[in-house]
């Protein structure tokens, strides 16, 4: 597959609009609508699959995946704090974004596998949900310790009841409860339209990404380098973990993609609450304006090669 998936072209169109300052206002309400559809669709798909064939090793896999998320956040923190000389708050906040995952990147990975005709394990969507959480908690501990300053209850609320995790989990539960047959009437909206909705979402992300590109100039080459190198290294780590826990080629590609991706839904909201002194522009510039485009344009094909090579 040499050419770009057309959904990725929508991201490129959004970036072009942003850079050219085209008058392409997408109302916030439409962003909310499109991202809600995306999250529900992904969750429901995962739920249906989970209900069909549940893995006997699920608990062990989940443990490995959670450990990976924590390790990635720690690794990112060490690099940013000691190599990059970021202050503690910012290093922790950025680390939380990179240990966590991006739903948009995952969806592009799913579309990539779909086009290539490669299947993957149903539990990948569970991993997607699960990986949103540990890195955020690690980030807060790194920034503030376990001291009394942190309102843990509020933070957990923010994470689990933020729209991202909540809609994914809700979709998962509905898909699981209703099963393939039960959802038949819903598939025109949640299955057939999935790629179209993803295209619209990527168009918006392209526009939003360019809003954050200005952050570049101000925050320097260091952050940009991190945002380009981290996905490759984390993607490779993710691929190795996926291979080690016995995932198929497709599952390995997606776990690498998750590892390589940086959150821009759950993590930013949680960090703003829990580490307010961290500058949100740093994380968003890195995650959205650099790593996200890198991953969907270059990264995913690369992780696919790594996965094939590991499984060869």
């Amino acid at each position, binding site marked *: 597959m040499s050419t770009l998936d057309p959904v990725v072209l929508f991201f490129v169109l959004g970036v072009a609009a942003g850079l050219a300052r085209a008058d392409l*206002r*997408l109302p*916030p309400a439409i962003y909310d609508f499109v991202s809600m559809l995306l999250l529900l669709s992904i969750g429901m798909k995962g739920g249906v699959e989970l209900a069909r064939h549940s893995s006997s090793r699920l608990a062990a896999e989940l443990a490995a995946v959670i450990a990976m998320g924590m390790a990635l956040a720690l690794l990112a923190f060490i690099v940013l704090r000691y190599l990059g000389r970021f202050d503690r708050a910012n290093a922790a906040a950025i680390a939380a974004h990179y240990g966590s995952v991006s739903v948009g990147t995952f969806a592009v990975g799913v579309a990539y596998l779909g086009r290539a005709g490669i299947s993957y394990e149903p539990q990948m969507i569970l991993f997607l949900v699960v990986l949103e959480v540990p890195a955020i908690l690690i980030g807060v501990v790194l920034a503030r310790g376990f001291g009394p300053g942190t309102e843990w209850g509020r933070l957990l609320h923010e994470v689990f009841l933020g729209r991202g995790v909540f809609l994914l989990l809700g979709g998962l539960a509905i898909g699981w409860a209703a099963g393939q047959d039960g959802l038949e009437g819903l598939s025109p909206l949640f299955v057939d339209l999935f790629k179209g909705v993803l295209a619209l979402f990527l168009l918006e992300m392209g526009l*939003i990404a360019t809003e954050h590109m200005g952050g570049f100039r101000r925050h320097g080459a260091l952050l940009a380098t991190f945002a380009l190198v981290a996905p490759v290294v984390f993607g490779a780590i993710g691929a190795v973990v996926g291979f080690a826990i016995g995932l198929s080629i497709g599952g390995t590609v997606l776990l690498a993609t998750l590892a390589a991706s940086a959150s821009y839904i759950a993590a*930013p909201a949680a960090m*703003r*609450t829990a580490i*307010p*002194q961290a500058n949100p522009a740093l994380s968003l510039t890195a995650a959205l304006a650099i790593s996200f485009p890198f991953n969907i344009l270059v990264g995913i094909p690369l992780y696919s090669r790594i996965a094939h090579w590991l499984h060869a």
Partner: protein
Amino acid sequence: MEHPTRKLVTIITEAALERDLTRDLELLGIDGYTFSDARGRGTRGRRASTWEHNQNVRLEVLCDAALAARLIEHLRQRYYDDYAMVLWLQDVEVLRPEKFR
């Protein structure tokens, strides 16, 4: 036609704070307030975007001078250093002063 006056405090800040501010207001004993959506620019850069992380809200609170002072003091301590926030204060005439302690 002269009416009694109260303080109108107007606050422009990050949309993500709406929920927290609501709680703060209630803890401060303020049970009348109005929110609306806004976008803009200030010392923390442009905040005018499609997505929630980069939007503003506009909060208006009508109350007496003492409560206004407590509100402002609270905002200053809790949010000023770390969040995009601007506020201003006016005297306005009201019709039913008993509604706005």
